[in-house]
């Protein structure tokens, strides 16, 4: 010791440092659990899909029913993927037809037009809508949308059909569409609006020609993420879609239909069902397909969100 401070003197009590390292390892392991979860999801889906393909003897023709009346009939070993993918796409499209105008309209109103007082009341109400569980929206579909809206207007053959389910899924994704687009609209710097007002533009012109184009990547992100939610929505599709686990391939949205998600819950089925064989294992295959579809959409959507963050 020559009276100078050494590094060891500055680095503090070794016991405290050891404690700090222990905490770091503990906290780090909880972060890495999320990686394990993802790996397990992929593993479970992939293994189940392989089992399924094995039990249909790698005969991929089963996945595209080419009979005269094609459809999804797992009990008869007819797994027509087109039926359930089409069901998901049809109901998802109807949902987006509802969610885009209502969600985007609400977002533009909240961000550009609403006085602060109105905004303070309206925003929490939209958040309440976001928190409503999907079974309750499913109930609403069966007991309100079907008898009071779809039946009188379209008079379908059956009151549970893809339009009813699609509209209800739309209700469910309105808040997602609204909140992500509102974030994007509010991220547009006010200097852009002021510049527009400064050269004499009206509010409507500023909104349509300046603010919306500036926020377009956020709005696209909102659309993509909302679409992903609509395709992944299970309860409403299972409750109001109108099919119990099997059904023919249909194009008419006023007919009952089956989504990928509803096909999965039905394959997992009742309590005492024997969990084996292709009719059960197909749920992993459909799950893997659904996982890849929603993941693809989410990744693209996230890209757009990041772009908004970088821009402003």
């Amino acid at each position: 010791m020559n009276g100078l401070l050494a590094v060891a003197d500055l680095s503090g009590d070794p016991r405290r440092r050891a404690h700090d390292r222990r905490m770091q390892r503990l906290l780090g392991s909880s972060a890495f659990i999320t990686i394990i979860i993802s790996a397990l999801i992929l593993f479970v889906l992939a293994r189940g899909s392989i089992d399924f393909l094995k039990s249909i003897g790698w005969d991929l023709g089963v996945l595209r029913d080419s009979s005269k009346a094609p459809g999804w009939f797992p009990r008869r070993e007819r797994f027509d993927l087109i039926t359930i993918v089409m069901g998901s796409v049809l109901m998802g499209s109807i949902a987006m037809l509802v969610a885009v105008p209502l969600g985007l309209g609400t977002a533009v109103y909240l961000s550009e037009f609403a006085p602060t007082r109105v905004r303070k009341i309206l925003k929490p109400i939209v958040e309440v809508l976001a928190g409503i569980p999907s079974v309750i929206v499913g109930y609403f579909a069966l007991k309100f949308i079907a008898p009071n809206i779809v039946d009188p207007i379209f008079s379908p053959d059956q009151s549970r059909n893809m339009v009813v389910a699609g509209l209800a899924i739309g209700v469910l994704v309105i808040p997602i569409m609204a909140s992500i687009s509102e974030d994007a609209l509010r991220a547009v710097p006010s200097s852009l609006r002021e510049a527009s007002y400064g050269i004499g533009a009206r509010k409507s012109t500023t909104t349509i020609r300046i603010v919306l184009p500036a926020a377009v990547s956020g709005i696209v992100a909102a659309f993509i993420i909302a679409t992903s939610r609509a395709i992944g929505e299970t309860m409403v599709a299972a409750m109001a879609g109108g099919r119990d686990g099997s059904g023919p391939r249909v194009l008419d949205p006023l007919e009952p239909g089956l989504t990928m998600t509803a096909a999965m819950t039905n394959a997992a089925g009742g309590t005492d069902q024997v969990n084996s064989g292709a009719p059960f294992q197909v749920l992993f295959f459909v799950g893997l397909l659904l996982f890849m579809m929603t993941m693809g959409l989410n990744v693209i959507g996230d890209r757009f969100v990041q772009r908004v963050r970088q821009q402003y």
Partner: protein
Amino acid sequence: MPIVTDSQRSATRTQVRQAITQQNRHLPSIALSVTLLIAVTFTLLTLFSLLARIVTQAIPAFSERGASFLSGTIGSEPDKVGIWPGLFGSFAIGVGVLLIAVPLGIGAAIYLEEYAEQNRLNRFVVVNIRNLAGVPAVIYGVLGLIIFVGWLKPVTNGGTVVAAALTLAILVLPVVIITSMEAIRAVPMGLRDAGYGVGASRWEVTRDHVVPYAMPGILTGTVLALARALGEAAPLIMIGAITGLLPETSLSGKFTAIPMLIYSWSGRPDSSGGNIGWSNAAAGAGLVLLALVLVFNIIGIFLRNHFEAKRVGT
């Protein structure tokens, strides 16, 4: 001859006056405002008709049955059923989520915000968490069915409420992590620097300064995650929640939860017999679920205000 005639001058005057007093009707502006107001009105109408439908349908269930609707068990007659097994299941799920997802989620968020270096691995962890948040609930059901009902059968006894709680804890974990990360990121850097400046270790700064400061945001995320877990039904169908008969509730036997009851009961046809049909029973359960979700949101807001008031005081 004047450059500006009197008639021109008065025309300009009226134009300016109209512009200032907003009497000039510009059609596209009006059209835009009307369109937006229609969109907002429809959104609000949807919410209110949903709430109104649940409440009006639920009233018979509560007025005729009273407390026995809460304490009774499920069965095959709509005017005799109760939601007790559902309440028990949902309560156990809520406790499980609090015990598993909240500590894990907050721990992960602290690590990623306070400890993790900006390297490729940690960036991958964050991207992965964002992706997990977007995975459909029904996929978590598949995971629960294989891992918690199948592999961990010695621990969970198969499709029990323990397996359900574990599955839903995993489902809401990304929500807890993302909201906690945002709360921790909002803590001012100066607070940490001050802590390090007086010789505190990283963990001491985190425990004593960062986490308390970020608590309101963390709590709000926790409460939202809890509300989400209580409302999910799709994973419960996958792991085999039942909707028929359930004579007794236990942690090691078959289970159900409130959303499962709503799912099952709303699909049953209303017979014209008794005063209470299945749709009333389903709405009754729905009202209880909505009330729970709303109560959790209110608790979250209350806690947030409490913490914020305290922070200003000190």
